[in-house]
């Protein structure tokens, strides 16, 4: 499902006009798609790898993945002069059911060299307050008592504890909130911008976004699943650690054009 706002189109048109002013004629417009791939330290991960204890995190916890879905939003291309194309969209990537792994940008973009391409992991607070019928239907909501809005990610599985017994983990990323008082307190934002770096687009392009799932458990916080496993949504300290670890999860992969 795609959310398309008028200002994104206006930004596009404005950018195109600016870009075209340096040429003899209007720039051609190109189709751009994003392909989301997943790995565990360079070993490819898809849903066929789920449900088996085949991953070991930085802490040495052996784990399986049973469910993984997350939202990205607000794709931004920044030109070499700092001008920006902002696309106010979102996409639910559901690795479990192999849905949303390829996202076709519902706008044409002009060819050129871009100093940076970025997206938001999760939703910024304004977007998180919107009503998304498809995400509601997918039961991706966060209860109002935890600030409402939506999960940024649901990453569920099992780990082997010190007795080698399988125990569940629910690594659910949301907007960090302290709900222990009479009023909700949001200690810091926990959505984040993923900067993929410079990119040159000369033709219709498929841009790979790689996610190294091991990073969620590693950098800078070594994640001990024996200590942090379930009931993490109402744990703002855990949410901030997820935010910190998420910074190095995503990177730019191959660009096919």
């Amino acid at each position, binding site marked *: *499902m795609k959310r398309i706002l008028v200002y994104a189109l206006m930004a596009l048109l404005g950018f195109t006009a600016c870009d075209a002013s340096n040429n003899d004629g209007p720039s051609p417009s190109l189709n751009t798609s994003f392909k989301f791939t997943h790995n565990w330290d360079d070993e490819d991960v898809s849903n066929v790898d789920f*449900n088996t204890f085949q991953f070991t995190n930085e802490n040495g916890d052996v784990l399986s993945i049973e469910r993984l879905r997350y939202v990205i939003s607000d794709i931004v291309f920044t030109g070499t002069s700092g001008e920006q194309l902002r696309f106010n969209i979102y996409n639910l990537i559901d690795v479990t059911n192999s849905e949303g792994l390829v996202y076709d940008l519902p706008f044409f973009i002009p060819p050129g060299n871009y100093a940076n391409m970025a997206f938001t992991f999760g939703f910024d607070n304004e977007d998180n307050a919107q009503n998304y019928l498809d995400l509601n*239907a997918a*039961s991706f*909501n966060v209860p109002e*008592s935890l600030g409402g809005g939506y999960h940024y990610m649901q990453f569920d599985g099992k780990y082997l504890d010190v007795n080698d017994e399988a*125990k*569940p983990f629910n690594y659910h990323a949301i907007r960090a909130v302290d709900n222990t008082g009479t009023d909700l307190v949001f200690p810091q934002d926990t959505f984040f911008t993923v900067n993929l770096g410079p990119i040159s687009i000369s033709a219709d392009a498929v841009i790979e976004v790689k996610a190294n799932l091991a990073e969620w458990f590693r950098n800078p916080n070594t994640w001990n699943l024996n200590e942090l496993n*379930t*009931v993490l949504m109402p744990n703002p300290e855990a949410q901030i650690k997820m935010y910190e670890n998420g910074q190095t999860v995503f990177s730019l992969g191959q660009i096919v054009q």
Partner: protein
Amino acid sequence: MVFSCSGEDAVYEPVPLSLDIPAIFSNTIIAPVIPSDNPLTVQGVDLGKRLFFDPILSGDGTQSCASCHAPEKAFADNLSLSIGSDGLSGTRNAMPLFNLAWNYNERFNWDGSALSLERQALEPVENPIELHSNWTEVVQRLQNHPDYPELFRLAFNSDAVTKELTTMAIAQFERTLISANSKFDRFTLGEANLTAQELNGLDIFLREDKGDCFHCHGNPYNPLWTDNEFHNNGLDATITDLGLGAITGDPNDNGKFRTPSLRNLAFTAPYMHDGRFATLDEVIDFYSEGLQNSPTIDPLMKNIDQGGVQLSESDKADLKAFLLTLTDNSFINNFNFQN
């Protein structure tokens, strides 16, 4: 009826029917699934309703779909395991029927064995522990009936009765079975108030450190009160009924069953795919203290060593009070859904 004229020939077309989608749905979730090759029509739904309640579908003429899917039970029955026309017990509890058009992945039955409503309606007719008939005979009976050939013609513009058209009509009727007028729905729309106990029950339902029901059973923004997905919710340590696993052949799916909606629980006892729990209290006790570990238990099931989420007796009572706010009396009394 619509007659579009071309020259002197009037071409009959059944009258298209649009679902009257409740605001509580249109405000929150995406549109229902209506197959393009089986759009709703007035005549199709009428035919489907008649077929649903007609024992002509059973081998000995004693049972209809409604025998196990009774309107007053929110289209379920009150048996642990449904009993077929030969008096034989099945292996599954009859699922209630409502809001089926919002099952987006279109996997029906407890085990997900039917990949559309139309296909779902095929199997019970020939199942020896259900209607125990065969489609050749059913089609023949319908074709020779004084009313049905004309009803099929009106519904599908077809002179021939087929099993495909029969199930299409039943599916059309089933898609009209909408339940969206519970006390909680009216609360959401600002038309009713919940008691303090019911509100606390909602809080327990939504708290990850309490009931944590919402991850599978929806929330006020998902008024289906099901994710329509398949989970092993920890009923058994040793899995004998493979559920989804028997359908997909994937052992990782063993013991997984479709999440039932929490609407209309007041009418749909007993509970679970095998009807093992006679009361809602037993269900809540199970999630609180009765979970059984197994290799495919869903990781959303917590505190398995302690048997579950460990609710206090007060919390259990409040949770039950909230769940009963999802009762829709107008649904079971809807004249359009009665025989």
